[in-house]
């Protein structure tokens, strides 16, 4: 055995460390506790690593399957609960397919919690959401409900016959709305009716996660009325932690920003 030569380097343990840029993030295999699947929506709970204590709505984690042939990149999933750790997702492509295929007791690889949560929103919140962004908004409604705060949800439905993974969008939307119902005052409507519905309610704060054309209208309406708005963004996220510089969205400063630095941003900052 060659003797340890530390002349050229300082041992890790003796060095005063700079503060990391945020709270600790867990990385590792975690056991799946339960899985329920129906109407193209999978709800999954995990044994909860301590690092997830105190996770707030808007935060997410990166999830990947350990199975042979799994995609190289993890998939970002909103954390919708922490007692136990919980996610809900629609089947999209290969990544979500393999995650959904997990059996209770199987270990998935997690990185999280990541992202910054919603700030305190106050009592008067209306959520605008559709099927592809439901996780973040469901987490928000649940969190507010637990804190005794009511939330109004405008659920933008998709063309019912269009496919959504293994089912139709109509079937999936119905299942998603049922998940919101215990925690919010829900209205289903189509994209064209969103502004009318906002007009009718005059919320103090809008939190929106929807397709860009809906977001653009909501943004314009908030600005016109001086209403505070938040956008929950979703783009493909290879790393989730700021390393790959790939999860970008153009903002109104005409620059690209990393969505994983959010994913919650002031609505007026984003270019839709």
């Amino acid at each position: 055995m060659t003797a340890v030569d530390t002349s050229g380097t300082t041992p890790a343990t003796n060095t005063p460390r700079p503060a990391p840029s945020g709270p600790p993030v867990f990385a590792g295999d975690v056991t799946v506790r339960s899985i329920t699947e129906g109407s193209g929506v999978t709800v999954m709970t995990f044994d909860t690593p301590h690092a997830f204590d105190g996770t707030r709505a808007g935060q997410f984690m990166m999830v990947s399957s350990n199975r042979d042939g799994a995609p190289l990149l993890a998939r970002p999933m909103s954390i919708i609960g922490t007692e136990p750790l919980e996610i809900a997702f629609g089947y999209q492509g290969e990544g979500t397919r393999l995650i959904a295929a997990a059996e209770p007791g199987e270990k998935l690889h997690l990185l999280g919690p990541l992202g910054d949560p919603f700030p305190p929103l106050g009592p008067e919140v209306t959520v605008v959401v559709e099927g592809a962004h439901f996780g973040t908004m469901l987490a928000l409604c649940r969190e507010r409900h637990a804190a005794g705060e009511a939330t109004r949800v405008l659920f933008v439905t998709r063309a019912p016959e269009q496919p959504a993974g293994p089912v139709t969008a109509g079937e999936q939307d119905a299942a998603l709305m049922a998940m919101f119902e215990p925690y919010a005052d829900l209205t289903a409507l189509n994209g064209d009716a969103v502004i009318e519905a906002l007009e009718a309610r005059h919320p103090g704060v809008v939190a929106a996660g929807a397709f860009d054309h809906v977001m653009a209208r909501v943004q314009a309406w908030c600005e016109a009325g001086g209403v505070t708005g938040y956008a929950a963004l979703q783009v493909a996220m290879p790393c989730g932690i700021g390393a790959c510089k790939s999860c970008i969205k153009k903002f109104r400063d005409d620059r690209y920003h990393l969505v994983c630095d959010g994913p919650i941003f002031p609505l007026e900052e984003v270019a839709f």
Partner: protein
Amino acid sequence: MSASMPDLTVPIGSVTLRNPVIPASGTFAASYGRVYDLGRLGGLVPKTLMPGYRPGHPPNRLTETGGGLLNAVGIPSDGVEAFLDETLPAYKGWGTPLIVSISADTAAGFAELVRTLEGQGVDAIELNLSCPNLEEGGRSFALDTAMTAEVVAACRDTALPLWAKLSPNAEDVAAIASAAVEAGADALIVANTLTGIAFRRDGRPALANVTGGLSGTPLKPVNLRCTYQVAQALPKVPVIGCGGIATLQDALDYMAAGASAVAVGSATFTRPLAMIHLIDAIATHCTTKGIAARDLTRRA
């Protein structure tokens, strides 16, 4: 069998890496300090710095393809000031060498960045030569012996060690390596990504930039070949292998090809602790064999 820690340090010229594993530039951020102790890495390497503000390429910037990743990020940058004020501080104080990757579209641009980085607590400069050379119609510096030599020579007026990062797209990578070393490079990183393309199911290019850099497992046989050719041609120059490294066997393969250390990129996206697990595996391997990490390297 001694139970004491093996000596994992490896010298790359005058810089002693804490162990043979460093991040590949562009696949790492100081935010991983929230996941593990950055002091455990062999060295730290931020994303390539370029002069001025640059937006980078539009989305999509990255896709999975052919068993690897394809990226066209385009080196977005907030400029040197933001780098010195915001980025660099997070990389300092971890007790492990700090290697700053730079690039520019002219040789003078490279040299200017080197000057700016002097006295900033940087231990070595990585010259990312894969950028297009604006003065030569956008041909990548790393494809040409003269252009490579020009960049290294322009930067050489510094006490900082210069590590040249080569491209596997070069027809004769050993010739480029020799040109870099003759011009004053202290070490070589072999290598960057191979140019590739991927299409979406609808037949449109998957990346906004159309072409991108292929990384991960598919790159390994090619960059391993480049590493071998460079190490054979320049037996005295330290080489850091890069391309598709995830497992102990990958690292050992690069060391068999002549690398002293390895840079890990895409594997970090698949498993964020990839580098930590690799370092642990190298330590165990060295302990079992009763050797130091630097003895893993096979040179001509």
